[in-house]
């Protein structure tokens, strides 16, 4: 991993009066969120959070509703004032920034896309997209030409003079996306941007984000409560519960070795063959395996290995990045992987796309 763009250290957000005492007080910070609510009336929305986001990475924060995702992502630009801790952006602590520095951070480094769009109803699409540029004082002509480019990029060409309430939800969110992109920030923060959209539109928009990520290479922090969305988009996924990090890792790590029963439960419905790579089912090379058996890379998705393995007369060897043989797989181990979960969910073409688009995005 290259050097982190965002480093979060010991971050706390405790809502309620007296919340600022909680992180520093061993007696209080040791209590669970429920106990804290009981004893002090404070809501611990983010609890002692630590993670890094690398440049160009899509970092997904996932959790059930109320687990503190929105609070966490807002703490990054201090739309919600954190209670304590550090948020380092390019090495500078956002929490120590003054008004002007914070404003500059919001104007140039980090933009946000919101669940409910937050468009200005009295402005046209063009004026909404150029809003951020106007705020930072870009000349009218320049911001218009830049905004027109962005509008084309997010697929809204021809709608420049429309008002938000004349657009469908998906198109409104494209405007929201355009507004975030217009300022050419290093990082884009998404707070459940597609939760309010229809499933079909949502899929289009996810593909759009993947495309934009590939084209522009921006760092993205993406909040969602939808596991399939998280697996589809995320290079790494952080799972939250009651304000705490439960596990952090790549999609196949979460599915392959869930940290606890909570996560295991979470991922139990996932068709494992679509997410896991051969690495997770590779066993030791058996004595009878011929040395000229077919070889697959350990990063191949199980699903993609099925045709070869089922067609081969012998087990298939698995090689790591350096070409060294790690072990072997056979029909039984693949069937076991498919049947251990999701067997009652025959993979749909849409689900196949999970793996495929992930690879093209990465």
């Amino acid at each position, binding site marked *: 991993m290259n050097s982190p763009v965002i480093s979060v250290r010991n971050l706390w957000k405790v809502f309620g009066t007296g919340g600022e005492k909680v992180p520093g007080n061993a007696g209080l910070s040791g209590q669970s969120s429920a106990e804290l609510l009981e004893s002090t009336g404070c809501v611990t929305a983010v609890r002692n959070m630590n993670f890094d986001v690398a440049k160009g990475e899509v970092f997904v924060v996932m959790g059930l509703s109320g687990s503190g995702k929105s609070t966490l992502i*807002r703490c990054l*630009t201090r*739309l919600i004032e954190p209670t304590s801790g550090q948020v380092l952006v390019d090495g500078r602590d956002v929490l120590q920034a003054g008004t002007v520095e*914070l*404003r*500059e*951070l*919001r*104007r140039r480094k980090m*933009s*946000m896309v*919101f*669940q*409910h*769009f*937050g*468009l*200005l*109803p*009295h402005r046209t699409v063009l004026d909404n997209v150029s*809003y*951020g540029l*106007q*705020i*930072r004082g870009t000349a009218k002509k320049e911001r218009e030409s830049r905004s027109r480019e962005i509008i084309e990029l997010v697929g809204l060409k021809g709608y420049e003079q429309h*008002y938000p*309430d004349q657009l469908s939800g998906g198109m409104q969110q494209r405007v*929201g996306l355009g*507004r975030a992109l217009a*300022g050419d920030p290093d990082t884009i923060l998404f707070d459940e941007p597609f939760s309010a959209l229809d499933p079909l539109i949502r899929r289009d928009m996810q593909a759009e984000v993947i495309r934009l990520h590939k084209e522009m290479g921006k760092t993205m922090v993406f909040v969602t409560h939808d596991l399939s969305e998280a697996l589809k988009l995320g290079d790494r996924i952080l799972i939250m519960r009651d304000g705490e990090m439960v596990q952090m890792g790549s999609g196949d790590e979460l599915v392959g070795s869930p940290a606890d029963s909570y996560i295991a439960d979470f991922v139990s419905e996932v068709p494992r063959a679509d997410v896991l790579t051969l690495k997770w089912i590779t066993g030791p090379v058996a004595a009878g395996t011929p040395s000229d058996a077919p070889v697959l890379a350990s990063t191949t998705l199980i699903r993609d290995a099925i045709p070869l393995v089922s067609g081969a007369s012998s087990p298939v060897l698995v090689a790591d990045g350096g070409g060294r043989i790690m072990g072997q797989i056979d029909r039984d181990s693949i069937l076991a992987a498919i049947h251990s979960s999701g067997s009652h969910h025959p993979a749909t073409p849409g689900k196949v796309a999970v793996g495929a688009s992930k690879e093209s995005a990465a």
Partner: protein
Amino acid sequence: MATLFRARPVLAAGPGTTAGNRRRISRRTALLLGAGALWLLGYLFLHGTGTLALPASELTDLHRSLNHFNSWIAENRAGNPVFMYVLTPLRGAVGSVAGFFMAVFAASPTGQVIPVMGWLGTVAVLTWVAFAVGNLRVALLTAVVFSFFGFQGLFVDAAYTFALVVTAVLLTLLAGIPLGVLAGISSRVQKVVTPVLDFMQTMPSFVYLAPLALVFLIGPASAVIATVIFAAPPVIRLTSHGIRSIPENTREASDSLGTTGWQRLRTLQLPMARRTIVMGINQSTMAALSMVTIAALIAAPGLGQVVVVALQSLDVGTAVNSGLGIVLMAIVLDRVTTAASQRAEPGARRSGRLSGRTRFIVLSAALILTLGLVQVSRTVMWAAVFPQNLNVGPAISGGVSAASDWLQTNLYFLTHSFQESVTIGILNPFQSLLTDTPFFVLAAAIAIAAFAVGGWKLAAVTSFCLAAIISLGLWNDTMVTLASSLLAIIVVMVLGVVFGVAMGRSSRIDQAMRPMLDAGQTMPAFVYLVPFLGLFGANRFTAIVAAIIYAAPVAIKITADGIAGISPTVVEAAVSSGSTPWQVISKVQLPMARKTLALAANQGLMYVLAMVVIGALVGAGGLGYDVVAGFVQSSVFGKGLAAGLAIVFLGILLDRITQAAAAAPVRKRIS
């Protein structure tokens, strides 16, 4: 078995609480009954003693010292630094703005009759403005109405009224919108401003006049200042409300882009609150017109002045003619500002029939035409001063007077006997019940009732108000005003319940009545007196009827909203269990709308009180009479000022008691 066990403590607690409630209800009822009994006994056995009656021409020491204060101010106006550096310059500044608009629309201040813009120019300019801020319809309305003022022979008076309204609204917006914005942005400002506005809005317009005349002398300047004070609350409130109701996610999105506070205000808060702010401008404008006409009492020129003079000489015809002018002006101001608020709606710009460019061209062409007409009216006499031979004002007045005379003669039997029987049968006995009971008995009864409704705190506020009224030396006059107000509010509430229930239950009736009620609410208080003066002559009864008609719309609307707001499921449940419509109304809808009814009574009382005191102009006695007399005779100035204060205390008292009644749940704990 297990359930029974668990149920037991609940069962045990059940009767206890119910008994407690019953005891508390009975305690409250007992207190109220006790207060009533005390009052009746005091009336029966101590009748006529301790009434604190003060004949109209007599003064107390307090009134005399207020008189002295008045003359002291008159003498020291020139030398006192507060006057020299603050109040007099303020008066001068306001006066010169008012003078400017009066000169533009009505007449030049040099005494020449010809205004800067003649009538034709004025009509043209106002029509153009109505078109620019509103639409073609309201522009035509403006043109027709302002020309009609000329036919009424009232163009100059109407222009004076309009000039004062414009001045006052301008200053109101200048002060009110920034204050509203501050209150919208900062919760701390909001916390300070809200109670002040609440207090201002419980005061009848009338009471601002005397103290302002004391400080700023009579004339247009004080009229404008009084109007600004009276008209500011709506626009402050609505501006703040508009900013506060911007969705949190929009604001957050704007913040996430790094807006400064000023940018947020300019690009987000003001544009998004625009429609609400313009609605505030509408309400403030209507309040301003109402006050400008009443400010005739402190020598503000205009239509109100014509009405006051006509009322004092009982010239019903002239009063109606001029009252009609006020009504028309109210309609124009309301329609134009409403059209403006619709234009301010976010979607209005693109749904308009004219595109921005065409509209601009049309507006410019119309402006050139307007300027041409202004030029004409500056050069041609008939376009400068409305031609006398087109003046049908006297004909209107004469016709109305004749009709009123005819009505009063031919319907004498009806109107007079109705008025007489109500006055003798109800009004007089009820008033004497209040005025002839010893003050200490009645005050104690009121305080006990307040304690029953709202506990110690309310009892303390009530006692304080009563003590203030007593020490102002105006107990008896206050009771006269209170008697009229209470009778009026009883009728208002009957109307409110009857029509409110009808409207709440049927959307057809609601649609039919609401426009009338809305129109009724925008009319200046003043004009309600005029038609009833024509019917019933000058007396208390006329004032009470006018107060009823003035206050009914607000009470009806609040009641209707309360009834309509009851969950349909509850009504459905009642109907499906076989209730008759009457049972649904009396057993479900009215009890559930109880709080709404108390709120309607609260608002209705404020309207009634405002009108009953203005009713002094048509012969209602009491505090209003003292106030009006104070304007006219300097020897009773102090008494008038004291009467204004007494009205304020009476208003606070009635407001707090009805509010407490509205807040109190049916089973309220007394503690």
